[in-house]
């Protein structure tokens, strides 16, 4: 049988959803990193590469204040968080798309990956895996 190069609708939806999730995360984190570097240069306080940059903004309330003040370290830190969440969002976007196309084998596989990732992060952060 000659293979045909036609993409099925569930496959197209999956590719589009994953592509959008990855590109959104990439664009937002890139803009935050670029804004952080620009803010450091324009603000006359370049983040030194040899000593460790620290922010004067701390805690949850400090995040918003740091964003408003265009603090380079806060902007970069949020960029890192967005970056970390992007591949993880790909797992959840895939799970939603597999559910919508009633591909329950892959719903189960994706759920297993999500659980393993969650357990790994919890074990790592709590110090069990360090």
């Amino acid at each position, binding site marked *: 049988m000659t*293979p045909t*190069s036609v*993409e099925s609708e569930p*496959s197209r939806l*999956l*590719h589009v959803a*994953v*592509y959008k999730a*990855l*590109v959104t*995360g*990439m664009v937002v*984190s*890139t803009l935050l*990193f*670029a804004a*952080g*570097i620009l803010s450091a240069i324009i603000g006359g306080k*370049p*983040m*030194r*590469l*040899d000593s*460790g*940059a620290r922010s004067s903004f701390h805690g949850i309330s400090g995040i918003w204040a740091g964003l408003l003040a265009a603090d*380079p*370290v806060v902007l*970069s*830190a949020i*960029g*890192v*968080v967005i*970056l*970390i*969440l*992007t*591949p*993880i969002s*790909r*797992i959840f976007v*895939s799970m939603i798309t597999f559910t919508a196309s009633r591909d329950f*084998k*892959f719903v189960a*596989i*994706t759920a*297993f*990956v999500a659980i*393993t*990732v969650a*357990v*790994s*992060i919890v*074990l*790592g*952060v709590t110090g069990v*895996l*360090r």
Partner: protein
Amino acid sequence: MLTLFGGACVAGLFGSLLGVGGGMFIVPLIVLGFHFPMKTAVAASIVSVIATSNAGGSSYVDQRIANLKLAMFLEVFTTLGAMIGAVLAMHLHEWLMLLLFSLLMAYLAYSSFTTRNLDDRKIRSNEFSTARQSGLARYLDLSGWYHDKSAGQDVHYVVTGGGIGSFLSFVAGITSGMLGVGGGVVKVSAMNRFMNVPMKVAVGTSKLMIGITAAVSSAVFFATGIIEFALVGPVALGTTVGATVGTFIMNRLPSSVLKWIFSVLVIYIGYSMLARALFLRLGWSLPHAG
């Protein structure tokens, strides 16, 4: 900062051409060029691996080169392997692990080099689609196709060797979890050499997959506060730009060229691992950058 950005661009470019993270280039750049401690360099490098995976992976998804179902299936084993690798790292001697993985790298380099012309031949003769599909691949509908710009044709392939592929993906996870490097190399080799997956699909699928293990490691580094934000910005931007450029080039190159470059990279990684193992165990200092 420009040196850091430029170096990260090159790492991102090669990373997206070969489906690997590029940490092997970024860590020495940060340690030797900017005199940061190894731990800080590894943390910044791991974060940049996510950036390069997002940039490279998204483009390979858009070009329909990455196989999303195959990636998700193999991630079951890489994520489990990475977790077990992190546990093993606490109990096993680092030199022994480095020595074992350097032997694995030597085999993968040999295997990639000796089969460097095989992909182009199989594409021309349509052999990727006529192999005997494994029952697991059929059950999970893992086979697929992509358009090869270099060959100027659609390439259909069936996935074989589900068992060995799963096992090697598990080993790739252990490599990532234990050593922080080398996972992408094992994934690409596992798919291309043992699962009848064309080199370019293996590269695209691996590029997408490495983001997950890197995200887990980065979350832990973030929580422990060893991420240097001044470093991460330029490195992540550089790898993103490099990876984006790499995705435009990759599909235009013949697979034989990719496998040539891949073999050289794997030899370099294996040699760096061996040099570090000998230094840790015997105090011997071989010339190497890592």
